[in-house]
């Protein structure tokens, strides 16, 4: 393989899906680092292993987090990615942008970095992919200066909170996800930018149980909009669905997981047993024109989602079944601080909050939180007689 050819990666320019290789090549026209990235990647495609060295601590003044240090293991071959560090730039809540803002970021990144980005990283940050060490500070200064952006989380800190589109474009939003996300992000800037704990903590906010931000799987604290009163049914709109061919019994009523719905075929009325409804969003999602959340809205606060390493896969579970969610979100913030204090005091290095709860026992945790035990917290009570 000649040094400049990338036959393997070229294969990935074929096919209908837009190609990341094309993107790297395009950046490579302007930036030598993008070109070296391409070549190093081609080598990985040949060797079957990464050519990045382990870790590396880099940063910007005053911050302990927000960058990921990265060095090539073959700096001689690929001098322009010898140091190739990443910025995690905190996105605006809901990932809405003006083109002006995006262009500013592009200009800065073309100047200081590789010209390659991820929109977005899987935590939600704008990933600016690869800059040499000496460019980090000036690039940061430009970002926080002219562009008005700031860094997101990395390392043992509060990670960039994210949320679904919510009230901005969704009829199901039971809480103002974007406002809450923005408020928490601003309130806890210090926790995002400097390592405070033994490990990371993630917050994700969905406007309803559809969980379009995948919070249950991906965050230590999933916050999920819900309602306490009965869902609202517009019977005229129901009849419209039925008249235009919806088999309401087989497609909606019989699918309700708790048999909370009943179709009065005679009266052409969809009846709800509100006390049976578990807010699963099924009927609402199926008939958005006819069924809406109730009016007494708030959020279910959950705890403990995370990736599988190293004690197995985790999903978040119910901690507070219902909390009103209005600015300045004091109750929520107090709870967060309480959780962080307890975790910080008791947790080991690299121990996520759910792992700590598992180690010390949920009882210990609930007591420290001053939260009452509730049947809503469990799928089922204990099956062992080891009650202590």
């Amino acid at each position, binding site marked *: 393989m000649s040094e400049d050819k990338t036959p393997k990666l070229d294969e990935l320019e074929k096919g209908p899906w837009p190609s990341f290789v094309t993107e790297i090549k395009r950046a490579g026209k302007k930036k030598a680092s993008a070109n070296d990235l391409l070549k190093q990647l081609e080598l990985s495609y040949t060797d079957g292993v990464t050519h990045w060295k382990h870790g590396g601590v880099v940063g910007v003044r005053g911050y302990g987090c927000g960058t990921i240090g990265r060095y090539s293991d073959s700096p001689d071959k690929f001098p322009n990615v010898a140091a190739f560090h990443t910025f995690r730039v905190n996105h605006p809540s809901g990932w809405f942008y003006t083109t002006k803002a995006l262009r500013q970021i592009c200009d800065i990144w073309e100047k200081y970095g590789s010209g390659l980005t991820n929109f977005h990283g899987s935590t939600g940050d704008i990933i600016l992919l690869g800059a040499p060490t000496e460019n980090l500070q000036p690039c940061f200064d430009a970002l926080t200066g002219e562009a008005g952006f700031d860094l997101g989380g990395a390392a043992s800190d509060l990670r960039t909170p994210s949320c679904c589109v919510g009230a901005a474009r969704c009829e199901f939003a039971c809480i103002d996800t974007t406002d809450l996300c923005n408020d928490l992000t601003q309130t806890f800037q*210090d926790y995002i930018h400097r390592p405070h704990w033994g490990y990371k903590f993630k917050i994700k906010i969905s406007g309803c*149980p559809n969980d379009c931000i*995948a919070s249950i799987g991906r965050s230590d604290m999933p916050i999920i909009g819900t309602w306490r009163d009965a869902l609202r049914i517009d019977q005229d709109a129901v009849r419209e669905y039925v008249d235009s061919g919806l088999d309401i019994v087989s497609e909606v009523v019989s699918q309700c997981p708790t048999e909370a719905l009943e179709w009065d075929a005679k009266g052409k009325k969809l009846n709800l047993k509100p006390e049976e409804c578990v807010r699963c969003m099924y009927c609402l999602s199926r008939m958005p024109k006819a069924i809406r959340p109730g009016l007494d809205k708030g959020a279910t606060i959950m705890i403990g989602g995370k990736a599988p390493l190293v004690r197995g896969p985790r999903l978040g579970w119910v901690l507070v079944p219902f909390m009103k969610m209005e600015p300045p979100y004091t109750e929520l913030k107090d709870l967060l601080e309480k959780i962080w204090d307890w975790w910080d005091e008791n947790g080991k290095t690299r121990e996520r909050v759910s792992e700590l709860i598992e180690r010390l026992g949920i009882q210990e945790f609930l007591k420290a939180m001053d939260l009452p035990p509730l049947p809503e917290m469990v799928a089922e009570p204990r099956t062992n007689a080891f009650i202590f």
Partner: protein
Amino acid sequence: MATDIGPPDYRTMLPEIIKKNYGQWKYHEILKPGFLKHVAENGDAVYTIRAGSPRLLSVDKVRDICDVADKYCDGHLRFTSRHNVEFLLADESKLEALAKEINEKLGFPIGGTGTCLSNIVHTQGWIHCHTPATDASGIVKALMDELYDYFVSEKLPAKMRISLACCGNMCAAIHCSDISVVGVHTAPPTKIDDKNFSTWCEVPTTLASCPTGAIRRYPEAKSVRIDEEKCMYCGNCYTVCPALPIASKETDGIAIFVGGKVSSNRTSPKLSKLAIPFIPNNPPRWPEVVSAVKNIVEVYAKNARKGERMGDWIERITWPTFFKLTGIPFTMKHIDNFTGALTTYNRSAHIKF
């Protein structure tokens, strides 16, 4: 130098039609794959076109996207939680022209809504990470090429989320996806760098990093040794200690899990379960992985009922039937042997013959 300013206020980023109807949305319709219409209490409507993105974008491509948004959407756009681009506008009449430019100028497909397959959430791989067992972007590209039709048309029984992580750290938390594609190591980190161990690593934290207690002190070399019998190749020790490299061309590859979901829609969230324990890496296009995923998608698409997510379907037909229908061999590796494994066994006399 300003610090701790936080991200720009999202309110400054919203299109007019969104600002005006913020919190006032009444219902939505999916006009066709990739085309959403949200209607507000006052009758206002916002139209959205969702476009598939490779996520890794050059700044010039971002500028192209901006050009389109300037032309049709008053200089606004958003990204979704699965890395798609959404163009929002109030003027229905511009939709087709916008769509044309997205396809032709940006080269982005339109789709991913409703029961289309959406984008594959994924991670860094060989592009930027130090611990991968496989690449990310390359497999995603190969998969989406093959599954392209599922993105641009509604051919599935329900939503389907495919996710990919390049190592067991599982960035993107793909452990609850309809299909998760995970990079796995299958050999212990035995090429220990004794020379650098004491400079780079601490013995206690290295020992503590191992969930199975497979690492023991090795004072002879001021280093450690691995009990190969106990090691489950999780790679956590390498994250903590660079002197314990675990990646290897021969033994790294892909595992595929299926049947997870995060939404509480109808059924509770579910973890994904192992379908295929190992497929060796085969860059640049991982044909074995692609055909394995395609097979699962097709069998699901053919057999599941309307509205049934992958995991709901499998629970209905039972796992043995899933393995039968997909033709995937069931092996020792499928049977759990981690903490709590016993509760995953068939503790009933329910058997199909």
